[in-house]
């Protein structure tokens, strides 16, 4: 078991290496792929190192990254502040759900991106336009999954709490919200995934800094190597953020990550 796992990891790394070699071979000087369309790996690496220190279109790479993170985390966090309580409340008080859900269902099928032009018209091209688009993109998973989290709490647990003398408020706070935590962690990941992907598009359309802004400018300036740096950074940051959220499950909901029963 342990050995086959090591083998898997080794094979995985080998595959990555193989692809880098293929990439380098295809883009070698005089190779079949012109570097204008796809730059060589060493060019991309050199550009990455350079962008880390020297500004590109206004800021260094770390500052572009921070600009993107600021928007995405603000929008995602605000969506959590609205989506979690509203979702839980809608699942708990069905009248509230009956009132709010139809409107929500009406807005849901519209791709979050379609709101960009509207927010730009309403709020200008400042941060608030992008934050609100990210907010809309993250709100749907937050709200839906918070509702699902409440619905998935076993009715038996509610009965048990009642027989132990808990009132509705106590049940909601202690049983429902806590039991729902693992689902909320999953919701956080989904919401962040949506938010991140929407942010990139928003930055392409209206921004003065950020990774999407770097990408679209690089494309116009035909800096393909910069474009690839931006794309890789977008991917890696996305993986890191969802990974971090996964880790929080260990201390937010330790019971949900325990091994099987001992018997």
């Amino acid at each position: 078991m342990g050995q086959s796992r090591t083998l898997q990891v080794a094979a995985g790394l080998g595959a990555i290496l193989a692809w880098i070699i293929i990439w380098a071979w295809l883009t070698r000087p005089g190779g079949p792929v012109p570097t204008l369309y796809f730059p060589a790996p060493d060019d991309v690496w050199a550009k990455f190192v350079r962008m880390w220190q020297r500004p590109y279109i206004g800021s260094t790479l770390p500052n572009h990254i921070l600009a993107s993170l600021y928007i995405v985390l603000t929008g995602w966090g605000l969506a959590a502040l609205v989506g979690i309580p509203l979702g839980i409340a809608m699942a708990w008080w069905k009248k509230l759900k009956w009132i709010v859900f139809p409107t929500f269902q009406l807005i849901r099928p519209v791709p979050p991106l379609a709101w960009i032009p509207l927010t730009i018209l309403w709020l200008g091209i400042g941060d608030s336009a992008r934050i609100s688009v990210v907010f809309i993109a993250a709100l749907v998973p937050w709200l839906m999954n918070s509702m699902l989290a409440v619905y998935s709490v076993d009715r038996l647990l509610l009965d048990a709490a009642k027989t132990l003398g808990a009132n509705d408020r106590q049940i909601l706070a202690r049983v429902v919200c806590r039991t729902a935590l693992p689902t909320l962690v999953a919701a956080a990941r989904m919401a962040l995934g949506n938010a991140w992907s929407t942010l990139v598009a928003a930055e392409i359309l209206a921004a003065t800094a950020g990774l999407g802004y770097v990408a679209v400018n690089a494309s116009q300036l035909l800096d393909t190597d910069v474009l690839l740096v931006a794309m890789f950074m977008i991917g890696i940051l996305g993986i890191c953020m969802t990974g971090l959220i996964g880790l929080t499950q260990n201390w937010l909901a330790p019971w949900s990550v325990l091994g099987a029963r001992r018997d």
Partner: protein
Amino acid sequence: MEQSVGKMASGSTNPATEAPAKLELRNISKWFGPVGDGVHAVDDCSIEVKKGEFIVVVGPSGCGKSTLMTVGAGLENPTQGEVLVDGKPAGSPGPTRSVVFQKFALFPSETVEQNIKFGLQMTGVSAAEQEARLVEQLKIMGLELFRKSYPSELSGGMQQRVAIARALVMQPEILLMDEPFGALDAQTRTILQEEVQRLHREKHYTVLFITHSVEEAVYLGDRVVVMTKRPGRIKRVIDLPRDVIWKTGDIELAAEHPEFIEFRREIWGLVREEIVSI
């Protein structure tokens, strides 16, 4: 209510039988869905549980035993009839009537300690008192080593011990148990049956206990209520002797007692009639 089998228990030796009904289910009927069109689960059942009495309800599965218990606990309202505690309407569920469920119903997000303290915290018991009662209960149920474990880390038997501890720590006036050992393996079940028997003997809890096991009923009950198949009615109420040897020994020995065998045969006959009749 029909009475069967002469009272072998001498009522005078046990003051509890003379006491007023602690819990009374009076003419309970329960329909799920519209009356006449939905599921008729329970039909006109009356059961009296006197203080310190251990009443066992047996019946074929699906006959409405659990329904009767959820009504008794106040978790469901009966379609007809009423639930009385000490002669007064019982109202909504609360810690005077603690419940042990077949599927444990432990809060997965809380440790053993937190689960057991749950009800105490809900009802505003002081922290010192919580701790004292917790420690006592952990000791009684043999859970000291698992205080910080989560339910998912425990075996089924241990989980049910926690659930029982969580109910007992409330010092309930009435204990309702719905097939508490139904989900356990035979060995664990035997041990827990003996422990519940011992607890009742020592502390004189008032218990309404539901099971589909005739043997369990005879071993634990002061009185056994046999229900018909759905819609569940009361078929027969059988008084069992209280202070005979089998009530103090372990279940293996009890099961060899001639009287035990006689009661088991009689009750099984009644239950079998309900299962095989169409």
